[in-house]
């Protein structure tokens, strides 16, 4: 009996077959696992071949990047000179050249004011104060900066505002005004008082049932009829009222979803502690409900941002209308593709980042509400 014959040394595991790991394994598993899968892969590659090379050739390889008039452009490729020449218009609209620093300053204030809200190092308390400050004080500062008329700034009429500036103004005002209005409407819809409930339900269902474009039509042709003679509203303000009322109805439905998700025990516990209606809602129910529906709120914001392009219908010169206007300029006919691709890229950047942010937020706030 020799020791060596008994000693049992397990053979080390063999490495997995080389074609099931690494790049080859990944390709086999994800692209070529079955005949159908192979066919789909080929189809997808063919589609990519059809789409990608012509786009690359048009947008980059054959494109013209610099110059100052249309003669500089090669035929066949994109003419980004068109965007370069009109860039100022697309951003500021008809805002006077010498005053554009005011728009830049307003934007910088917002960026630096809002940046701490997205930092982890800043305490929540400070964030809330800063957020409230941004909501209450910033709009006033921005209005005086943009409109002028005081502190020695010349007046710039709202009819001169345009481009991305106007898009952001409409989206920003719509968002900040629609959220509180929407919360009130949602509370009203969940109220036990029949008259209040009926009023809110009627309001919400009315605005949700009609297209935004008819609302804008209404605000431009019917609002002047509703007001006493001689009282005249700014065109921008009329559009803002229409957009805000429309969006607040959608916001109300989102918030209602959150309110319904809060268990009744929360309200009963608050009542047992002796809190009244507004304290129950403001301290107990709304903080939980709003946290639940943040993704929905952001989605409403995205929809609002995209909907701002509709103000073109009533003759406001937002980004969309500035681009459209530039493509119909007789000196620059034939560059509509470039114009629309540029506008699409700008809108896409804003919307995509917002939706990305909301997804991240959803993951971070997912702190075990859902069972």
């Amino acid at each position, binding site marked *: 009996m020799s020791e060596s014959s008994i000693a049992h040394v397990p053979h080390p595991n063999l490495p997995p077959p080389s074609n099931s790991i690494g790049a080859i394994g990944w390709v086999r598993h*994800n*692209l070529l*696992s079955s005949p159908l*899968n192979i066919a*789909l*892969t080929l*189809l*997808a*590659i063919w*589609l*990519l071949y059809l789409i990608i090379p012509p786009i690359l050739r048009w947008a980059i390889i054959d494109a013209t990047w610099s110059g100052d008039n249309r003669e500089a452009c090669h035929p066949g490729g994109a003419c980004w000179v068109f965007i370069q020449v009109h860039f100022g218009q697309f951003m500021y609209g008809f805002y006077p050249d010498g005053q554009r620093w005011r728009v830049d300053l307003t934007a910088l204030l917002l960026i630096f004011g809002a940046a701490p809200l997205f930092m982890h190092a800043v305490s929540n308390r400070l964030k809330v104060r800063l957020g409230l400050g941004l909501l209450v004080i910033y709009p006033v500062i921005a209005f005086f900066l943009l409109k002028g008329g005081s502190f020695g700034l010349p007046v710039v009429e709202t009819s001169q505002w345009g481009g991305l500036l106007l898009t952001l103004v409409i989206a920003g005002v719509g968002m900040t005004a629609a959220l509180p209005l929407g919360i009130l409407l949602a509370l009203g819809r969940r109220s*036990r*008082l*029949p*008259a*209040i409930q009926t*009023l809110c339900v009627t309001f919400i269902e*009315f605005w*949700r*049932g*009609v*297209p*935004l*474009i*008819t609302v804008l*039509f*209404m605000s431009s*042709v*019917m609002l*002047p*009829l*509703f*007001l*006493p*003679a001689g009282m005249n509203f700014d065109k921008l303000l009329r559009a803002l009222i229409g957009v805000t009322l429309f969006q607040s109805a959608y916001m109300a439905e989102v918030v209602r979803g959150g309110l319904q998700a809060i268990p009744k025990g929360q309200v009963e516990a608050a009542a047992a502690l002796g809190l009244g209606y507004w304290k129950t809602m403001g301290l107990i129910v709304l903080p939980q409900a709003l946290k639940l529906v943040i993704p929905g709120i952001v989605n409403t914001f*995205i929809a609002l941002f*995209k*909907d*701002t*392009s*509709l103000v*073109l*219908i009533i003759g406001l010169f937002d980004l*969309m209308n500035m681009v*459209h206007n530039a*493509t119909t300029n007789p000196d620059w006919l034939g560059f*509509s*593709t470039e114009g*629309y*691709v540029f*506008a*699409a890229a700008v*809108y*896409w950047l804003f*919307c*995509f980042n917002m*939706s990305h942010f909301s997804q991240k937020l959803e993951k971070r706030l997912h702190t075990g509400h859902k069972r």
Partner: protein
Amino acid sequence: MAEHAPAPVKPPFWNDPQVRAIAFQVIALVVTVAFGLYIFHNTQLNLRRLGIASGFDFLSSPSGFDIIQTLIPYSPTSNYGQVFWVALLNTLLVSALGIVLATLLGFIVGIARLSKNWLVAKLALIYIETFRNIPLLLQIFFWYFAVLRAVPAPRQSLSLGDAVFLNIRGLYMPAPQFQPGFGWVLVALAIAIGLVWWLKRWAWQRQMATGQAFPILRTSLALLLGLPLVVFWLAGSPLHWQLPELRGFNFQGGWVVIPEMASLLLALSVYTATFIAEIVRSGIQAVSHGQTEASLSLGLNSSLTLRLVVLPQALRVIIPPLTNQYLNLTKNSSLAAAIGYPDLVAAFAGTTLNQTGQAIECIAITMAVYLTISLLISLGMNWYNRRVALVER
């Protein structure tokens, strides 16, 4: 006072919840009614000042303008009431076609998004993320002003087998012309539908009684296609195709899809399909994997599992948001006004309003139509929800 009265103090009346409830409601109602009266009063004054007679009499006066696409007979001598019907039908047409196309595209992309094939799933994702984040109006403009303006003039039309032509005036297709005997084909189709319905019931009863399955799908298809075809042949093929022909500067005859409609339809279906795709994906993912495993362990094969277990449960999740998207698409079709497709908003709330000055009536009718559509759809939705709701103990 309080120290003299040990009995519980009745709160002052302004703190009584019931009094408060009534007071709040009365205040809300009074404010609403006052606001309404104020607006009504202003409107009356303004109308009198501008010399506009309110009322719906304008609907019977002649319109005097032509419409580029009409589904019912219409001419500039027709009245504004007919403009309304033409416009409404145009809206319904583009919405219905858009719903069909968007559903098809959305389901394909939504299923592709769940594909095990990495490339296909990523392509679907890129499609969704691209088109969902670009405003619909921009997409409509892109198709209308950038793409469809680039197609050739009528004389250099792109053609497909001398039957379908594409040029800057639109897409021309052969139109079917029904000859007298065609009614019999329709009758045959109706009979086939009735037979299929009866067959389905009979097969179900037989399966319940004996356990024997009947190849219902194949038989129904054969019935639905075969019977009308046989009758069509017997009746002497009572159907002719009218081909579009180049006459002078443009094509005559056949069916034409005007560029306004084509770009609106393209943009609406491409945009809405992204939302439908996400709805389909989340609906399928909402069915727990245990359901599939349980069904496979019962011996159902994968296609039966999909048809009898996964899809019915996924549809319960998919259909409510899906109808919401249909409603959105219908409302979004009003963007037609921006490119001049004669829908309700463009032809009625636009041209008619501008010509007659009857702002309140035109906008009110337009809004009422959209409200009715959305009300009908949500009623149907509620009915469906009640039907498919989970029946629990």
